[in-house]
């Protein structure tokens, strides 16, 4: 068995598998009698409890499909996903999700958005307000609790979306290119924010991205996927300690990983480009 993230206090303790993807494949029926499209080849993947993994791949490689299947928003054509030993049959509050598109409820304020899941689960108002206030602080949105999503920048909206997912206290946090639409500077800050929260709260995180630097900086493990049909090509451990500072991006180890992943992903991007 593999050891938990290097640098963590529990180093050496055997991991507990939180998410187990077993032979999951996804075939989409063809459009108007066209040939069916295999988005995801049969895939196996284990994610350890409290681990932070990133799934890296070119666009259209089925990485989002895999994440949506774990979330229960899409069904596998074959195989199954186990979360804490139970098979996933649909979405649920144990798997929080942050989407690439801005999915805050436009009719609710920032505070109401963060409290949405708590309200759906019948958490009493006083307790709800307490949790919402705590997460407003954690994502640095104190003072914006009464704003509507429309009044926020993209970065602030995604911070609210992260707070909304975390306030529900899910065992697993799934993120589908959450910072993909943000400018470079904002993206860097968001990465640090999310990493900081993870370093303190230690949730199981599966983070999908096509950005190599982002994949290395955030994760203790980078899963590289191939071009369509998506398949896991490489499973690269990231041995950078925690707490991780943004300056790690200029370290030799980071550069080595970046060079290695660039090679892996380039071959796939070339294949993907040829196909489209």
């Amino acid at each position, binding site marked *: 068995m593999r050891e938990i993230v290097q640098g963590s206090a529990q180093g050496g303790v055997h991991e507990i598998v939180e998410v187990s993807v077993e032979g999951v494949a996804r075939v989409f029926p063809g459009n108007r009698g066209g040939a069916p499209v295999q988005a995801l080849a049969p895939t196996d993947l284990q994610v350890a409890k409290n681990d932070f993994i990133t799934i890296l791949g070119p666009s259209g490689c089925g990485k989002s499909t895999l994440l949506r299947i774990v*979330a*229960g*928003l899409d069904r596998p054509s074959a195989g199954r996903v186990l979360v804490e030993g139970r098979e996933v049959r*649909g*979405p*649920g*509050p144990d*798997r*929080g*999700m942050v*989407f690439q*598109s801005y*999915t805050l*409820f*436009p*009719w*609710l304020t920032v505070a109401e958005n963060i409290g*949405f*899941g708590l*309200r*759906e*689960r019948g958490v009493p108002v006083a307790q709800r307000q307490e949790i919402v206030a705590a997460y407003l602080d954690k994502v640095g949105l104190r003072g914006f609790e009464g*704003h*509507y999503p*429309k*009044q926020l920048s993209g970065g602030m909206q995604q911070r609210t*979306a992260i707070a*909304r*997912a975390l306030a*529900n206290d899910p065992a697993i946090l*799934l993120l589908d290119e959450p910072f993909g639409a943000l400018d470079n500077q904002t993206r860097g800050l968001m990465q640090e924010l999310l990493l900081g929260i993870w370093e303190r709260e230690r949730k199981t995180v599966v983070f999908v991205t096509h950005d190599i630097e982002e994949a290395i900086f955030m994760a203790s493990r980078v899963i590289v996927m191939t071009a369509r049909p998506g398949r896991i090509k490489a499973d690269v451990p990231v041995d950078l300690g925690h707490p991780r500072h943004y300056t790690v991006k200029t370290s030799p180890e980071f550069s080595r990983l970046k060079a290695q992943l660039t090679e892996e992903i380039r071959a796939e991007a070339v294949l993907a480009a040829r196909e489209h």
Partner: protein
Amino acid sequence: MSRFRPLQPVGGPARVALGLSFFVLFVAVWAAATLGGLVPRTFLADPVTMVQDGWLLLTRFGFASDIGVTVWRVVGGFLLASAVAVPLGVMMGAYKPVEAFFEPFVSFARYLPASAFVPLLILWAGIGETQKLLVIFIGSVFQIILMVAVAVGNVRRDLVEAAYTLGASDSGIIRRVLLPATAPEIAEILRLVLGWAWTYVIVAELIGSSSGIGHMIIESQALLATGQIIFGIIVIGLIGLVSDFLFKAANRLLFPWKLA
């Protein structure tokens, strides 16, 4: 820089001034055509006669109660239609089998002209209030159902998915995602259909009625009192303008997030 360019916004006071000036222009052309003798009095009353006739109607012939009766009929029939159509439309938008069951029939029924039902409804319900309400109901209900179903069916899928990952149940999705997401659009649909309901009520009152604005108009026709007819029509327009204004004000109050 020129201010008259495509999509260039117009300021508040200028907007009001422009809107009013067309009313002024309209009345001016009308006055010129009638008072200038271009159009015979018999066919079209001039604005002055119209105002005098209107004053007489209100002070001598109890036209205010006619207006009250017509407003009551429109609002009553419209509320009945909304009470049936909005929940059904929401269910159709949310649940595709329900939509598959009702949609073809509603699409068919939508094209049945409410005015053509008037003779039949008189046969069934007499010429009382029930018949008037039914005309408006038939005219409005199918339109609202279809438009609400489309609005609910078009709610962003990712918002629904986000709510599911936050632990929402199916009824939670309907009540706390689909309904609030479409509420402004539903309000807009109701505003639109209320305008059409005014057409149906006048048609219902033109045939077999002893009160209401439509009744007054058909009586005035027999007397060739075009001033009264025009006054009646203008009153309807003004009521529409006021109800539109109220709807919009209510929307601003109820859905501040739309404007934010």
